[in-house]
């Protein structure tokens, strides 16, 4: 509705705001108005978190992500495993077997080498666990105050089974939406680790590579339509993107969405909506209803999927809209976030 009513898409701001990196509509406007027009080609139009590419009569998946998390170390992980797991998950979500990873480091002058060693060690362990090999790298150093400790870019290559196509465009009416674990843990963990909050909690980042889960899914379930890790912007933003690309409508059942109590509490304290909070080890799986139960079973059998739930389905409705059926029986639309979520006062 919004987009239909909005004849003049305009970039009112003339500078980059933090919101341009939030994964919401401001991010989308950067992509739509600046990146896509400049780089336009059919591969980019796949609108997934990675791209499937023909290569010498085969297909590979190729994806990239930069990691800029602060603090660098947090309960449950550090920027290192985040950087490996994030890209591995993106490859998995393309339906690819993760093979090769690049690692590009931007280091800030003054970073303790001890920290760098810890991060690199964590990356190595994460890569081993995820069955991917770090095969090429790069290191740049910038002056103190021109970076935030370390930024890491990882790009990944995976091989794709012939005929396998995971794509938002496959998503159709009647499909079932599964979430593989409780939401919001990574985002709330990062927030609560920032000093100025004075939080104390046991919330850990959920960062993990879901290789075994996805591999088992892909081999056990013949017809998965879409896989996507619900990182920046949370499950709400991710489902909105999918609904837009597939031109379908998605309805979620609020009471089915798994969320741990401390995460919910932290969100209430801060006035944040957990549907929009980042995850690093949670996938959305969309597939035909007849396969939903066996898929759920495969996921639940995985150590990282024991709290998976069927949370919704693809329904008749305005294309691009995501609905949430509330516990009271009413239904509302969950739109895209504009900019970052800002803590509310009342």
């Amino acid at each position, binding site marked *: *509705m*919004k987009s239909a*009513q*909005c*004849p*003049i898409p*305009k970039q*009112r*701001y003339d*500078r*980059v*705001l*933090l*919101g341009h990196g939030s994964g919401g*509509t*401001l991010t989308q*406007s950067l992509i739509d108005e600046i990146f896509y027009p400049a780089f336009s080609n059919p591969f980019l139009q796949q609108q997934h978190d990675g791209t499937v590419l023909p290569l010498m009569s085969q297909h590979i998946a190729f994806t990239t992500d930069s990691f800029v998390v602060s603090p660098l170390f947090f309960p449950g992980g550090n920027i290192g495993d985040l950087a490996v797991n994030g890209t591995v998950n993106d490859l998995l979500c393309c339906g690819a077997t993760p093979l090769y990873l690049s690692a590009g480091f931007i280091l800030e002058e003054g970073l303790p080498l001890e920290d760098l060693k810890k991060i690199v060690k964590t990356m190595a362990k994460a890569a081993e666990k995820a069955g991917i090999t770090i095969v090429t790298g790069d290191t740049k150093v910038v002056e103190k105050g021109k970076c935030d400790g370390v930024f890491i870019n990882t790009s990944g290559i995976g091989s794709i089974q012939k005929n396998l196509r995971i794509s938002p465009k496959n998503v159709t009416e009647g499909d079932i939406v599964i979430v593989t674990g409780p939401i919001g843990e990574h985002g709330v963990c990062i927030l609560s680790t920032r000093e*100025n*909050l004075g939080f104390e909690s046991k919330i850990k980042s959920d960062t993990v590579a879901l290789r075994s889960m996805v591999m088992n899914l892909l081999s056990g379930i013949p017809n998965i339509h879409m896989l996507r890790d619900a990182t920046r912007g949370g499950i709400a933003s991710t489902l909105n993107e999918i609904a837009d690309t597939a031109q379908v409508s998605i309805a979620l059942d609020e*009471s089915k969405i798994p969320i741990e109590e401390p995460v919910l509490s932290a969100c209430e304290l*801060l*006035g944040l909506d957990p549907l929009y909070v980042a995850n690093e080890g949670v996938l959305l799986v969309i597939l035909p209803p007849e396969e939903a139960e066996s898929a759920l079973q495969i996921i639940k059998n995985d150590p990282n999927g024991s709290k998976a739930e069927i949370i919704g389905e693809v329904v008749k409705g305005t294309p691009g*809209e995501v609905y949430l059926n*509330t*516990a*009271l*029986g*009413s*239904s*509302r*639309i969950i*739109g895209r976030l*504009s*900019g970052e979520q*800002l*803590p*509310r*006062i*009342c």
Partner: protein
Amino acid sequence: MFNEFRNPQKAKILLEAIHKITRHSWHIMEICGGQTHALARYRIEPLLPKEIKLIHGPGCPVCVTPVSIVDTAIQLALKNNVIFTSFGDMLRVPGSRHDLLEIKSRGADIRIVYSPLDALRIASENPGHEIVFFGIGFETTAPIHALTILEAYRKKIRNFSVLTSLFTVPQAITTIAQDKECTLNGILAAGHVCAITGTSEYEKLAKHLKLSIAVTGFEPLDLLLGIYTCIDLLENREYTVKNAYRRIVAYDGNPKARQEIDEVFEICNRKWRGIGEIEKSGYQIRSKYEQYDALKRFNIKTDNKKEASSCQAGDIMKGKITPMQCKQFGIYCTPEHPLGAPMVSSEGACAAYYRYNI
């Protein structure tokens, strides 16, 4: 136990009861933005009888802070030596040309805090800087500002000041209710405001303006109980106050907090964004504590004239129109590029409508 106040079964029973007791058409205003937000989040309005129309009141401090004060905030934040601190949701409120987020992107040192006490801590940790806190809110937050200023006074912290945009509810209700086009019958009084003020002022109001008032909380069952109570009063033509939020709101409110308000603040006239100036509708810092008044400390006059003309926030708050009826809504005014404050705050009426596409 508090989770019980979200129990869907109980909510459904309350809804049935509401339907049962409703015989006439009533316009009920929820005062507080937090209530607006919760009503939208649980999508309660479409579950109510058709006879009940909810009007979104002026109780969002982010929404009613005038453009001129936002401009002053920007002016202060741009000062070289100033660390400007604020609750998060004030950052996206448009001033006449910019908002604080934009100013931050140009290099101003603007920090989100969760309490004015956090800002005071920043002040004691940064003796070389001036720390200004953007003090917004109603009777609920006013005493927290007072407590912070008293603490600064006690600890002799001299690099801290507050830019106040503090409002009081009853006068605004009076103004809105007395507007000729106003169709108001009942009010869901903001539970957290009453936790400080108590309920006695509302009783006068109810009698004076012929309104039925239910003191209301924020959980789904609290909201439904408030609505139930208000309708019940209305159907019985009782122009009085009932407390539907008894675990939080005492008859006398919080006298200690009110005492600190009185020590630090005095009543003043305030301009409300979209409504205009309302007599005796706000707090300002007494001269005894004027060193903590950012306006005086930096010798700044706020320009009272600037207001975005195309924004119909005032009419929305008076219940004259719904956000959807504003010509700007969703076209020229969106959460990314808000024209008025009700589109900025996530509990603003326009943002709530946009977000939940009511």
